[in-house]
């Protein structure tokens, strides 16, 4: 039986006790998936998994608090679920987690870049063992999966769901720690270069808040200080400063909580590399507090607590 059949059988088993199960189905074309809310066995036929099922579905969980919900998670998504549990934003008893052993997902941006023309509407996609066969406008293209994998998958430490009630597929185990070339390259730049980079990049930002809305850890909903008038943190002016300020709000509110699922960057319509900021912040958090969000149950995010003697904060003498 394939992974998908196993998953369908597992969901069918538990569907009776749940209000719905969240998974993925094919979206407006063959290349794009969209979230699927399974309420009956008939809906199960539309369920898909695999490299095209990219969304982190745990974004929906806080909004469904109090309902009995099943959710299909990849390794990275399960970290977000754990972080939500740790912050008591969802109840463990209300959630049934169908964990996958994930082989990585694709980056739509990389696919777009690899095809000769803008794909627009993709007619069909065949997912092979290590390639994607895409038919668009009557033309066929074959892309290596390794070339179009999302950045987060290249350095993924948790391909298997960290927490699950049902685990589907064969475990991969934790791969060796690798760093992302693009991140290292950016961090090595001078202050002036980085400053100029953010000036340019943030002048492109249209402040649509897609990054915030896709983020599973952004849970303030209607009380986000970025859109409140009282207190007024960010004005309506669309300038690089205000756009950068919004990103700084986002990063600082996710310090020690971000699970690096990459949804912010994926959701960005103007391809701003937001993960450069997030990964860097997470690295600092790991360095100072030896904390990685969503890797274990019952962790307290480091900024929610303190130690009288901090081992790793060395105060500068004056």
């Amino acid at each position, binding site marked *: 039986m394939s992974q998908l059949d196993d998953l369908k059988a597992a969901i069918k088993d538990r569907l009776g006790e749940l209000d719905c199960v969240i998974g993925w189905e094919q979206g407006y074309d063959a290349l794009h998936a969209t979230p699927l809310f399974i309420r009956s066995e008939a809906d199960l036929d539309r369920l898909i998994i695999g490299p095209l099922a990219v969304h982190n579905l745990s974004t929906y969980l806080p909004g469904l608090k109090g309902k009995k919900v099943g959710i299909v998670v990849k390794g990275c998504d399960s970290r977000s679920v754990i972080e939500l549990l740790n912050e008591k934003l969802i109840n463990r008893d209300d959630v049934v987690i169908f964990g996958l052993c994930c082989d990585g997902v694709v980056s739509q941006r990389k696919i777009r870049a690899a095809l000769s023309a803008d794909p627009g509407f993709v007619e069909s996609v065949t997912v092979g063992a290590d390639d994607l066969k895409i038919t668009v406008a009557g033309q066929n293209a074959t892309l290596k999966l390794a070339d179009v994998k999302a950045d987060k998958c290249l350095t993924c430490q948790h391909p298997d769901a960290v927490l699950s009630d049902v685990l589907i597929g064969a475990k991969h185990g934790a791969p060796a720690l690798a760093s992302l070339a693009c991140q290292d390259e950016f961090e090595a730049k001078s*202050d002036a270069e*980085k400053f*100029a980079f953010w*000036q*340019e*990049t943030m*002048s492109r930002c249209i402040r649509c808040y897609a990054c915030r809305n896709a983020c599973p850890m952004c849970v303030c909903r209607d009380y986000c200080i970025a859109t409140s008038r009282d207190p007024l943190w960010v004005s309506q002016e669309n300038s690089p400063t205000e756009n950068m300020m919004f990103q700084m*709000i986002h990063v600082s509110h996710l310090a020690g909580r971000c699970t690096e699922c990459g949804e912010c960057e994926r959701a960005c319509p103007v391809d701003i590399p937001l993960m450069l900021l997030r990964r860097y*912040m997470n690295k600092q958090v790991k360095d100072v507090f030896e904390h990685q969000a969503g890797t274990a149950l019952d962790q307290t995010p480091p900024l929610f607590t303190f130690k009288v003697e901090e081992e790793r904060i060395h105060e500068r003498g*004056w």
Partner: protein
Amino acid sequence: MPAQDSRELRIVGFLCNWCSYGGADTAGVGRFIQPTDLRVIRVPCSGRIDPLFVVRALMNGADGVLVSGCHPRDCHYSEGNYYARRRLELLKRFLPITGIDERRFEYTWVSASEGQRWQHVVTEFTRRIHELGPAPLFNPVSEADWNALALKASQGLGCSCHG
């Protein structure tokens, strides 16, 4: 009385009401000579300082930001400065990725009786900011700058693998 012979820069200081504000006051009462670049904002506790206050100040044109609170174990509210220490340390470590020089931000502890220490801190920090010079502005200042920036942004320069 300016300690430097050069033009004043804009330095914002967030001082806790119970210790560092008192320390600065002690320095004043003691008639210690201090540079005058620092604008003091008095806050009830260093734990009240959201790191975003610092970011907002830096983005809005401050050349430097200094945060000072009670020494650890001396907090009027028992634990405010412990939270502050964690947040501010992370902020300081985070600044390099934004291209803002992290030396433009500093946090320290000064008690109400440490007038001398306050004088030292404020003099040292002001000197550091003067060495760094005025901070670059995040927003372009002229129409021509705007157009150049928009052009560069449309070309997506800067990150090799993100366009």
